[in-house]
C-alpha cells in the first residue's frame, strides 16, 4: 500500500474549544488508483488533504494518528525529511488557480523551482524541462508563456500551470483539492481528462477531492464520503452509486438534479443544516438531519465498519450482515 492513513485527527483550537476538522479517519491509497473524496463545504476534506502533507495552518494541528507513506510515518518525520517528500513524492493541486500562483513571479520562475530544489538542477537545465511540461498540459506557445505572469493567463490556463507544476517530478501521489471548482464546465471536463491521462501515464495515485458527485462518478476508482470531519461511507465507485448505504450518501444523490430525470419530479433534499464542528452533539453527527434515526444513534456515534467486503459504512442501521 502506497499510503495508509490510520486514525488521523486534525483539530483547530480556538480559545478553549476544538474544531474537529478531521476526526479519526482511516483510509488507504493504492498505487495508480484514483480515490474520490466527496463532501460539502466544511466537512474536513481539505483539512484531511492538507494534513497528509503537514500543511495544516495554525491554529490547526494533527492531534493523533499516523500517515504511513511507503511505510514511513509522515507525522513523525523531521522537517528535512518532510521537505524532501513535499512536491517530490507527494504533490498538490489547489482549488483556486487565481490565488495559488505567486502574482509577482513569472510562470517560468515558479515552474523551475521543483527542479532546482529537489533535483538541484540549474535554471538553464530546468527551463527546457519546464517547456516540455507546459506542452504536456497543452499550453500553446509554451516557450513565451514561461515569461508570462499569472494574471496574464485565463483561469483554465493557470490551472494547467498548477497541474504542470505538480506533475513536474513525477510524484507518486497527487492530491487535487477541488481542482476545477473555480472553472467553467467546458474547461473542467478537458482539465480533468488531462489530469486523469497524465496520472495514468505516470502511474501515479490521485486523490481527487470534490463536492461534485458527477466528477467522482466519472473519474474515481474508489470513493469516500465525508461528513462533519468523519468518513461515513467508503466503497468502489460503482457500488457506492448503485447501493448507497449511508442515509447521507443517499440524500446527496437524491439532491442532485439530473438531466435524464423524469420531469416535474421534485428533488428530495436533506433537511436541516450541517452541524457546527465546534460543538458537535453527542452521537451520530448526521442524527438531526437523518430520516431513519433511532435512539441509539443519538447515544453513540457509529464507526466505519465493513458492510460487504469492500463497502464500509458508519451507520448503526447498516451493521454487517443485516
Amino acid at each position, binding site marked *: 500500500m502506497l499510503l495508509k492513513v490510520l486514525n488521523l485527527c486534525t483539530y483547530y483550537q480556538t480559545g478553549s474549544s476544538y474544531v474537529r476538522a478531521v476526526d479519526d479517519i482511516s483510509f488507504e491509497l493504492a498505487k495508480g488508483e484514483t480515490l474520490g473524496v466527496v463532501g460539502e463545504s466544511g466537512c474536513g476534506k481539505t483539512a484531511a488533504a492538507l494534513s497528509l502533507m503537514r500543511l495544516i495552518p495554525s491554529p490547526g494541528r494533527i492531534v493523533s494518528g499516523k500517515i504511513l507513506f511507503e511505510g514511513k510515518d509522515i507525522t513523525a518525520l523531521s522537517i528535512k525529511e518532510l521537505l524532501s517528500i513535499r512536491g517530490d513524492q507527494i504533490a498538490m493541486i489547489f482549488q483556486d488557480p487565481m490565488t495559488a500562483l505567486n502574482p509577482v513571479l513569472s510562470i517560468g520562475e515558479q515552474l523551475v523551482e521543483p527542479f532546482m530544489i529537489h533535483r538541484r538542477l540549474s535554471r538553464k537545465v530546468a527551463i527546457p524541462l519546464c517547456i516540455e511540461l507546459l506542452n504536456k498540459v497543452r499550453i500553446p506557445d509554451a516557450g513565451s508563456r514561461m515569461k508570462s505572469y499569472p494574471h496574464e493567463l485565463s483561469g483554465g490556463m493557470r490551472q494547467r500551470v498548477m497541474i504542470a507544476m505538480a506533475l513536474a517530478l513525477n510524484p507518486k501521489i497527487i492530491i487535487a483539492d477541488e481542482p476545477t471548482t473555480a472553472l467553467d*464546465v467546458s474547461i473542467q471536463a478537458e482539465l480533468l481528462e488531462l489530469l486523469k491521462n497524465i496520472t495514468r501515464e505516470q502511474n501515479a495515485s490521485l486523490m481527487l477531492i470534490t463536492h461534485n458527485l458527477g466528477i467522482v462518478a466519472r473519474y474515481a476508482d474508489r470513493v469516500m464520503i465525508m461528513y462533519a470531519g468523519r468518513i461515513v461511507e467508503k466503497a468502489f465507485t460503482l457500488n457506492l452509486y448503485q447501493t448507497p448505504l449511508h442515509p447521507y450518501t443517499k440524500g446527496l444523490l437524491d439532491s442532485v438534479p439530473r438531466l435524464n430525470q423524469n420531469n416535474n419530479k421534485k428533488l428530495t433534499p436533506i433537511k436541516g443544516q450541517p452541524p457546527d464542528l465546534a460543538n458537535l452533539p453527542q452521537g451520530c453527527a448526521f442524527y438531526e438531519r437523518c430520516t431513519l434515526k433511532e435512539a441509539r444513534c443519538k447515544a453513540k456515534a457509529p464507526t466505519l465498519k465493513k458492510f460487504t467486503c469492500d463497502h464500509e459504512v458508519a451507520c448503526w442501521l447498516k451493521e454487517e450482515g443485516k
Partner: protein
Amino acid sequence: MNANLMLKVNKISKQFPVYRRTVFKKKIGALNVLNSVSFDIVKGETLGLVGESGCGKTTVCRTIMQLEPLTAGEIFFKGERLSMLTKKELRQVRRHMQIIYQDPFGSLNPRMKVLDIIGEPLMIHKITSSKGEYKDMVADLMMMVGLNPLMSSRYPHEFSSGQRQRISIARAIAVKPDFLICDEPVSALDVSIQAQIINLLEEIKDKFSLTYLFVAHDLAVVHHVSSRIAVMYRGEIVEIADKDNLCRNPKHPYTKALLSAIPVPDPKERYKDEHALLRGENNDLLDVPSGCRFYPRCPFAMSLCYQKRPVLNKGNHHEHLTACHLHQES
C-alpha cells in the same frame, strides 16, 4: 401585444466602451457584453438562462432591473417600455419585479437585523404603516421561506448560507411581485442545501403564481426548474427551446458540448458517450472574430462560419431556435 406576455426583451445590446487614456480619453473599442439578445417570457413560465462565466447572463438581469442602461434595444415589462418610464413609474414597476442574487453573504446588509432586511421593501413601497402589522408580515414571510420568526432580531452573519438565501427570497417576495429574477441563486450553496432552495423556489412560484427568469451556469439545475431554456455564449443567445427538446435534441455545437461536459453522477455513464470536449477557452470579449463567436472552438466549423455571423432564426414562442449555420434554413 400578447396580454399573456410578462417580459419581452427585444434585441438588447450592451457595450462597455474601452478607453485608452493618455491625456484625454480615447475610445479604442468596445466590449460587447450583450449582442442583440431577444427573448420572451410568458406569464407563469420559468425561462432558464445558462452560460459560462462572462457570457453576459448577469448583465441581462441587471439591464432588466434597470440597474444598468442599455446600448440598444428595448425591454417591455407587461407591455410597458421600461426605458420610457419616469422615476416614479419605475418605482411602481419595481414592486412587481424583484431579484435574488447569487452571493448570500454580500447581498444582505450586515448591519441590519433580519426583520429590517426583509421589511425594507415594505418600507420603501409603504405597504404598511403600523408597526405591529409590519412585524406580522415579516413573520409570515419568514415562515413561508422556512425560517423561524423568532430569529427576526438576529443579524445575517448568524445564519448559514442556505438560510441567508432564504432571507433573500423572503425579501424578494415581500411586496408580492409577479416576476422574479433569480441570478444564480443556488450556485454558492452546497448540494444538499441547493436542493432545499430549489424546492422552496418552486413552492413559492406555485403559491404566488410567479414567473421566473432563472439564471445559472449549471445546466442540470436549470433543466430541473425551467420550462424553456436559453443558452448564451459570449453575449449572444445561441439556442433557445423547450427544456426537453434542448437537452435531448441539442442543435448548436456549443449546447452539445455543454451537455456532454456535465459529469453525470452515475459511474455507468462513464464510458457511454464520447465526450465532445471543447478545446480552447472563452477568450477576451474584445477580439471577437468576424463570423460566429463560437467559430474558434467549434468542432464543426466551416468557412461560412468564419465569414458570416449566424443569427437566431425567427420563430414563435415555442419553437426550437438556434443561431448556427448548420441549422439555418436559407
